[in-house]
């Protein structure tokens, strides 16, 4: 039999796991999956997408969480809508298999049976549900314990690293912060009412395994402000096993370490907590004991003005239950952004437009040297009238 998808068949070759075989499994059972596959083959032939703009598609009580998707060639592709569900993932993507099977069963019943574990933002992505089943599919997912994630101009689904569940470097409980913030912001996640998207990501240490600094408007990154914990015996064991400790101290970005063959000395005053030496010698070195997080604001991809990395706005905050200080700060930031941003303006672009000075005053944060690499080099700074009054 001649294959209907000769171009996609090329992607079945090679050692890396391929997705075309996954389509084929579902195409054998589900018409919508077959049509998605056939449409994709035409995209490969014509070098273009055949999906159209979505339009407003959702379920009762929600504004976000479902992304509308229609085929531009319904004679080949799915004729009656082929929408995406974003389903909120449990913290750090840990699953009991019965929970995952539940999602699979519901999804096979109503949709294409094709999915991502997970989307770039972190949600479970269910790809391809016809319009008429959206409400039923959601009802069944929600009655079995799963809820939608964010989409559109709302607080998007948060994500976090595996933190204390499986990593010794986590400076606070990333999973609990993820879950607490997600529950606190349910209304903001499900009801798009903001100028644009707002992303929050949570990493337990400066290694930032969920790339929060690059990918989240608000990044919460674990850190400490006392001394790196050293087990000198374990350092010597690394040396005995052939690890070049001297080379590690020379690669330290602040050169705050010394190794004399017997003892590792760290000048913690000069350490910038980059994690490099800890990454190299996890048995011997650990983050300090006075732990918390650095809060950074503004990370985003290019659209519109440029890609941004998060900027330090709070050098150190204790992150302890019930996280009142953190939640209050996020609420002040989001509310200020909501009230001041233009349509499709992310918080970084708003701050760039109006100035950090205006932002800091509005949300009540003090200016501190940790916020900048170096002070300004132009003389165009402003004085508020109340700052001048004392002159009289």
């Amino acid at each position: 039999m001649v294959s209907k998808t000769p171009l996609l068949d090329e992607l079945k070759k090679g050692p890396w796991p391929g997705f075309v075989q996954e389509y084929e499994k579902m195409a054998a059972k589900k018409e919508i999956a077959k049509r998605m596959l056939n449409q994709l083959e035409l995209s490969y032939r014509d070098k273009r997408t055949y999906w159209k703009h979505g339009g407003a598609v959702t379920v009762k009580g929600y504004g976000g969480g479902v992304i509308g998707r229609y085929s531009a060639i319904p004679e080949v592709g799915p004729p009656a809508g082929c929408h995406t569900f974003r389903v909120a993932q449990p913290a750090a993507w840990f699953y009991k298999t019965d929970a995952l099977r539940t999602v699979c069963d519901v999804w096979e019943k109503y949709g294409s049976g094709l999915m991502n574990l997970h989307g770039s933002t972190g949600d479970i992505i269910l790809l391809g549900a016809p319009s008429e089943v959206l409400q039923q599919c959601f009802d069944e997912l929600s009655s079995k314990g799963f809820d939608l994630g964010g989409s559109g101009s709302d607080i998007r689904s948060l994500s976090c690293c595996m933190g204390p569940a499986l990593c010794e470097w986590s400076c606070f409980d990333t999973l609990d912060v993820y879950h607490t913030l997600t529950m606190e912001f349910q209304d903001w996640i499900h009801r798009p009412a903001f100028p644009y998207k707002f992303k929050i990501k949570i990493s337990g240490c400066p290694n930032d395994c969920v790339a929060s600094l690059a990918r989240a408007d608000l990044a919460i990154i674990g850190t400490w402000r006392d001394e790196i914990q050293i087990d000198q015996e374990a350092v010597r064991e690394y040396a005995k096993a052939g690890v070049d400790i001297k080379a590690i101290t020379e690669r330290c970005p602040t050169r705050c370490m010394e190794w004399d063959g017997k003892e590792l000395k760290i000048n913690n005053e000069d350490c910038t907590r980059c994690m490099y030496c800890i990454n190299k010698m996890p048995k011997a070195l650990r983050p300090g004991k006075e732990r918390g997080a650095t809060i950074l604001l503004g990370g985003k991809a290019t659209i519109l003005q440029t890609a941004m990395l998060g900027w330090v706005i709070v050098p150190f905050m204790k992150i302890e239950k019930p996280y009142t200080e953190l939640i209050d700060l996020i609420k002040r930031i989001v509310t200020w952004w909501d009230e001041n941003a233009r349509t499709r303006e992310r918080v970084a672009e708003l701050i760039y437009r109006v100035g950090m000075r205006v932002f800091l005053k509005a949300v009540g944060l003090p200016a501190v040297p940790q916020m900048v690499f170096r002070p300004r080099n132009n003389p165009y700074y402003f004085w508020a009238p109340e700052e001048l009054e004392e002159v009289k």
Partner: protein
Amino acid sequence: MPIMIGPPHYEQMLHPVIKKNYGKWLYHEHVKPGVIKHVSETGDEVYTVRAAIPKIISVDFVRMLCDIADRYSDGYVKFTSRHAVEFIITDKNKIDPLIKELESKGMPVGGTGKSYKPIVHTIGWNHCHTAVIDAPGLAKAISDGLFEYFKRNDLPAKLKIAIACCLNMCGAVHCSDIAIVGMHRKPPVVDDEIVAKFCEIPTTVASCPTLAIKPKVLPDGKRSVEINPERCMYCGNCYTVCPGLNIINPKYDCLSLWVGGKVPNARSPPMYSRLVIPYLPNNPPRWPETVEAIKKIVKAWIENAREDERIGEWIERIGWEKFFKITGIPFTDKHIDDFIFSIRDFRTTTQFKF
């Protein structure tokens, strides 16, 4: 039907050994490619076994993962931020049989330590209306090409690649060792009828970062817009807000390659990816030119970088002028930024290499 219940609570999803040792882990070590050992202060030891899976999977595939997890990891399974699957094993005798089973089912085990990691990418022609390229297919082709680096721990450092199908960059590729972005090269084509019917004119005009869009009134009184082609930089933001401004143009659309970004703070601070190749042909199903370009850059990095240098750290040490020399990639006027934040990259010293 309950609404706004939020995600399932994580405590329901944690293996008993994870719950018992929550916050008590002492250290971890790399056992072999794809296997990490975690040791707790309680004396417990667990092993993580990591395998690559396709980005788009069927429910049957997920059920197969569940079956494997039921047999090897007590019915628990987890996923990583780079979309790999991980099984947490308490009995180390199960590691090798698990690896054998995963590989026999097409899931290679690796991607830990100093290795090639699974690509983070967007959904492409599979399910998106603005995709220029098909990230899932391209990711498969690149991963086949770099497969030898996945089951290793001896690269200079980690190697992370990301793909975004268009400038919207849902894959947030701007801080990856190597990034591919699908690009347009022509302004959108205005379809007056669709603009008049579906688009809000002020929003569409305001969506343009270079002020290239102006409103216009058609002879029949309907409202549309016109685009100044001199100003348009093909970002596609207007197409996102207005379906009447089609920017997709298969004849001219292409790929671009970016290099040297990183996210972790370890050693050097996070860095942006930088433009290295402004044009690569959009050549499905396997994009051979792009795969070859990436292999060449990776090879140059492996041959020239010092221990623990990510690609960006290596290039910053030797200088970008030297990177272009070593790789033989031509440097053009497109490499010099001419948008609003450009001058931060201009060289303001006589110190450079020839």
